[in-house]
């Protein structure tokens, strides 16, 4: 069936098989490559995207399920020419090594801080526990997240759709 999505603000549509994962649909059909395929079973979080306002692992969502929905990936956080302030903070703190998982982490941190910029460090750690950075740069990410928190506190939390379809 034809799946119509709003991806990073742009409305796109493409044919999807019923058994096609949203992950494959976004990467292969729509050409949005910042989300990555790694474990394919919901353990590593490299395929994280914000779908209808909730950060989910797209390897466990069907493309047809997301029809008429909205998807935000790391490309959607950045502007056309410049990276977003959150991404700049990640760079400043060296919160990455190989960079494979970085778009997913950035998206999830954006989602968590937009939801609740006052979340404690423990809460943030718990809410990032579904993701794996194989280079182990967690200790660089935490100071980055601490700095980013003040940014999100200042800017009003972005309104996001509340229900997942």
């Amino acid at each position, binding site marked *: 069936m034809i799946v119509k999505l709003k991806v990073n603000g742009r409305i796109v549509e493409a044919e999807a*098989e*019923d*058994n*096609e*994962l949203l992950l494959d649909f976004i990467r292969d059909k729509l050409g949005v490559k910042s989300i990555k*395929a790694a474990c*394919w*079973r*919901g353990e590593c*979080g490299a395929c*994280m995207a914000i779908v209808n306002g*909730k*950060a*989910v*692992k797209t390897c*466990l*969502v*069907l493309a*047809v*399920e997301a029809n008429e929905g909205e998807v935000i990936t790391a490309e959607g956080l950045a502007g056309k020419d410049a990276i977003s302030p959150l991404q700049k903070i990640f760079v400043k703190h060296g919160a990455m090594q190989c960079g494979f998982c970085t778009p997913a982490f950035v998206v*999830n941190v954006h989602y968590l801080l937009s939801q609740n910029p006052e979340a404690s460090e423990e809460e943030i750690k*718990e*809410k*990032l*526990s*579904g*993701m794996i950075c194989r280079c182990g740069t967690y200790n660089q990410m935490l100071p980055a997240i601490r700095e980013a928190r003040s940014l999100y506190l200042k800017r009003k939390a972005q309104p996001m759709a509340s229900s*997942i*379809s």
Partner: protein
Amino acid sequence: MIFGLSFGSPYFTLPKFKYVRPKSIEEALEYLKDNGEDARVMAGGVGLLNFMKERLVEPKLVIDLKGIPELHKIEYNGRLIIGATTTLNEILSFPKLRDEYNALYEAISVLSDHNLRNRSTLAGDLCEALPWVDSPPPLIAYDAMVNIIGSKGSRSVKVKDFIKGMAQVDLAPDEIVTSIELPEAAKKRGRFYKFAKGSEFSIASLAIVFDASINELRLVFGGVSDIPYYPEELSEMFSKAYSAGDYISNAISYIRKNFTPLDDSLASSEYRLNIMETLLVKGVREVIQGEKR
């Protein structure tokens, strides 16, 4: 074990199936009736899609229940009613759960991770009926019911009777779970303890539900056998016990005498017994010290 999960095996694709998204329960039941065992219902899909990638189940028809409005709800009217497609995070953000059903709240808080909880559902947890899933023990401790509808009508069954074995539940191919219902618990307190040794899979867990005056207490262990272990005798022993120490040592010898835990790749039977003891000692002491008798 009915099946072994092959951790790390590279299954990238889903088998072929047809996807439907009915708008009403009647429509969903119609699909189930027409397709029998070839159909599977999906709520969050976390379990189903993973099992399908491993070819443990290969339905020809996947019926997505998320299009049915009456299954997506959580409400309290003296009893807590949680719809089949309500996600675990939506359940966690319901204030009544945190205030009055602490054991269930604590169990869901440590179940898998935040992003999966944006998708997975309580009904899905129950229908999967895997030993290491944390939500069934507190549901049994709160005496929760599963509400089911099928082509022959609707029925309710207690969670403790619903789970019949590993990945086996009391649900016919033409039936779906509509909601999970917990009795009033305003005068009760609960705790949940989980031991997972660094992974997300519980090697042993313990749900304790007790009344405010600590005269009644229910213990339900998870992760230690094919189905949650609910020794009702331990509740009777509690009401007759002289002291916490007395109760704990009697409870431990009762479990050692009457129960043999699972022995699998996660942990040996003896290891699980030791963890059960540790959780029991910690849990009962905290309950008694934390609340004035």
